[in-house]
């Protein structure tokens, strides 16, 4: 099973005997997205970071077009990593599309997870009757088309940017060389899987306590979508962050930590553990 950990560039830190706290990155980047948030939990959790297949430092061979042709494949990866680490009562923090990947993993193996945190989730990006996802069908088609027709431009944008890091000494060379590096062909497929997904039905089946973090101005997942998710979850609660953008884990790390901490450390977890074990 060890090769699962290598395949997904899994990094484990924090308290070895602590409750597992797993951070999952969304479409576009890699585990470095959590760089400013994850360390805050290392004192009392066993912190698990990883890269999705096809992203960051994952093994290129880990990407399987068939398996990763749906979010379920990514959820299965999450469970494989948990099993390889023998992680029980996992608190799963998923950003963007990984919020839904967490929900799917929880449905596939409900006893595995104690709590879920969804940062900027969207169960469906495309508008539907009676539902505002924020994008029209044509918008998403245009996105996929621009990925098809323009991936030369995108690939140069995604290529490593070597820069003098004297002004940001905390950013090592290793980071600047790998951050956001993605195979354009995989990015194209991941974009299609992500932005054409519809997991609204699954939300109502998630029995695990879930915290939804929503930015006040998010161009990808509008506030109404965050509210929709929190309402649809049987045990969901919503925290609105006064932050702009889709990545509060980067743009507002302190707020993000402050919102997550009481929920993941809270006593509610004990109750849940008790009822589940009993």
């Amino acid at each position, binding site marked *: 099973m060890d090769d699962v950990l290598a395949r997904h560039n899994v990094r484990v830190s924090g308290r070895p005997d602590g409750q597992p706290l797993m951070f999952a990155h969304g479409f576009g980047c890699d585990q470095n997205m959590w760089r400013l948030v994850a360390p805050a939990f290392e004192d009392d959790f066993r912190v698990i970071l990883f890269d999705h297949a096809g992203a960051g430092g994952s093994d290129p061979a880990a990407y399987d077009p068939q398996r990763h042709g749906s979010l379920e494949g990514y959820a299965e990866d999450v469970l494989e990593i948990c099993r390889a680490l023998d992680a029980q009562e996992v608190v799963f923090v998923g950003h963007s599309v990984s919020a839904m990947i967490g929900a799917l993993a929880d449905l596939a193996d409900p006893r595995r997870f104690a709590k879920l945190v969804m940062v900027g989730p969207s169960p469906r990006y495309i508008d539907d009757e009676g539902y505002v996802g924020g994008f029209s069908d044509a918008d998403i088609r245009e996105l996929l088309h621009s990925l098809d027709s323009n991936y030369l431009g995108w690939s140069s*944008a995604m290529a490593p*940017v070597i820069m003098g890091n004297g002004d940001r000494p905390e950013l090592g060379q290793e980071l600047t060389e790998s951050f956001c590096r993605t195979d354009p062909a995989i990015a194209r497929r991941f974009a299609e899987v992500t932005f054409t997904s519809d997991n609204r039905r699954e939300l109502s089946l998630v029995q695990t306590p879930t915290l939804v973090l929503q930015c006040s101005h998010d161009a990808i997942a509008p506030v109404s979508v965050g509210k929709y998710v929190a309402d649809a979850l049987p045990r969901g609660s919503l925290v609105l962050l006064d932050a702009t*953008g889709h990545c509060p884990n980067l743009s507002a790390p302190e707020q993000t930590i402050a919102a997550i901490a009481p929920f993941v450390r809270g006593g509610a977890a004990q109750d849940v553990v008790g009822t589940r074990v009993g």
Partner: protein
Amino acid sequence: MTAAPGEVAERSGEGRVMSQQAASEAFCAALLDDDPEQLYERAPCGYLSTTPDGTIVKANATFLDLCGYRREDLLGRRTFADLLTPGGRIYHETHYAPMLRMQGTVREVALDLVRADGGRLPVLVNAALDTTEDGSPRMVRVAVFDATERREYERELLRAKQRAEQSETRAHALARTLQATLIPPSAPSVPGLDVAAGYRPAGDGEEVGGDFYDIFQLADGDWVVALGDVCGKGVEAAVVTALVRYTIRALTVQQALPSAVLRSLNEVLLAQGTERFCTVVLVRLRQDGSTWTATLSSGGHPLPLLTSRVREPDPVGAPGSLIGVLTDVRFHDEVVRLQPGDVMVLFTDGVTEGRSGAEFYGDERLRESVRAHRDAPRPAESVLGEVLEFQHGAARDDIAVVSVRVPPPSGTAEQQVREESAS
């Protein structure tokens, strides 16, 4: 000493005086005209300054020209992402903004601006994050370049790349098809014989190799096994391989002795005028009750190994000339009676010359492998597996192996093996 403009002019004549003066005036005019304000406003690229959240706080005239908005439409009212297509906004949120935050800069990001009139403008964007003393973001400076021409050029490149990929796919399909016509997909089932074959082209298998084998029936209980190696690879070698293979098929109908077939094959290749030669081992197998008579001849090819439970694997037959090189050739026919339990293994030099580092797989390992698998019905497949394993799965040369085994009376061999391993 530096000469003043006037001094130079005196030495070099009237025309030079004028141009020197004009240049000097132009220099001064440019210096005066291009005050910092103009340098900013009329720079040959659009400039934007935004808050860390992206709200536009400053824009130069060039940018306003590019996007068609008035200054008051933008400042404090729109974010940079607002000016992008929906797809561009997603890219902005998932790549551009995180990269800017983490790395401090983004460079050469290809995006489409949506102009005030709804039109799209392909642009390239560089951005730099300005931070305060304590490292927190203060503002973002963005440079926007019109990339209409470049985008068209990229599309051309992309189309060329797609065409190249399609051609490559077709070439691979062609190679596989050709390969499949030269190698039977699996060894045919021969009544009264266990025949097995293993084949692996060199490298990634996309190029047509020079090794081939063929197993076909002439009459009831009368079969031919041919295995050979045409020098070289690729399409040219494949043409010769096809010629050799079908010539053997045609000749065996007329000529009973393998040596006679090889002799005629030599003439055909010489007449063909190809510079490629080949090696072939040819075995004619005739059934005689529970035994088979094998008549074999080698044309420059490694001799097959013959083994049984009571016989160590040893080469059988006599060496013969290469085929397609000389007019004066010698081939020898060897007749062997194959008893139940006897195994003959034909192979190409890709087996013995398989390498692991500087070490060859060699004759001794091959004999050992054949000895180890001689009681199994399909030793060829096991031998191939071991050669590949020795080379860590990456064959440097084509490998072909064919095994012919007369099955022992039902159960006996297997039974003996079990008894042996039990004792």
